[in-house]
């Protein structure tokens, strides 16, 4: 798994590649927390090169979404969610908790 954070004018673009499971989710969580600690609560998570995500990754997304949405200060949105990961998110009932966009330009533009 690899996580890269790009600070844009109106939001942070966090790209997570590879596989997020119980071993790698803490690193993903840290990247999300770091953005929040810097006072950034508008976050785009680019999943276009994500191969796999277990519920450990879902929990990291949920914790960050709670933090971002508190006091209406922002939101975490998803980009290019691969089909199988989307289906797993749906089974977990998570899809309604996150806006999802097909590409990062539209997602970044939504802020």
């Amino acid at each position, binding site marked *: 798994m690899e996580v890269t954070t790009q600070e844009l004018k109106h939001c942070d673009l966090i790209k997570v590649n590879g*596989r997020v*499971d*119980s*071993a790698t989710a803490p690193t993903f969580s840290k990247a999300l927390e770091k953005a929040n600690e810097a006072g950034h609560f508008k976050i785009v998570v680019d999943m276009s090169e994500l191969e*796999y995500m*277990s*519920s*450990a990754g*879902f*929990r990291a997304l*949920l*914790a960050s*979404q*709670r933090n971002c*949405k508190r006091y209406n200060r922002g939101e975490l949105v998803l980009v290019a969610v691969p089909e*199988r990961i989307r*289906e*797993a998110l749906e*089974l*977990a*009932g998570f899809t309604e*908790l996150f806006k999802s966009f097909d590409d990062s330009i539209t997602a970044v533009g939504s802020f």
Partner: protein
Amino acid sequence: MTFPAQFEFLDEIRDFVAQTAREGGFAEKEIYFLQLAADEAASNIIEHSYEGISNANLDITCDVRGTILTITMRDTGKSFDPSNIKQPNLKADLSERQIGGLGLYLMRKLMDEVRYEANPKTGNLLTMTKRRG
């Protein structure tokens, strides 16, 4: 196969299940969800049954007979009562959404059958089956 009960071996556990499922003629999409179910099961055992224990092992079998794939996981850690694990409320809003119980919920959704037997002598045995689509 015996795996060290550590999160770092989840990759190998998923590969092991995928290989058996592929040989058994399962489709790639089915294989993804079998890997997810195995990952959730192994993660729960490592996190909860073996909580605080770093040198434990996890015995995993994965077989296909006919059209049915069976995964078993045996551990000698703490047992649990699956009926005590609350179903996550998928309708709850963001602030009330529970973080625990999601792994077991996903396993039940992804597999046809999930059985758990706690035995103080032989350890805990988790059995999950899935019929090929």
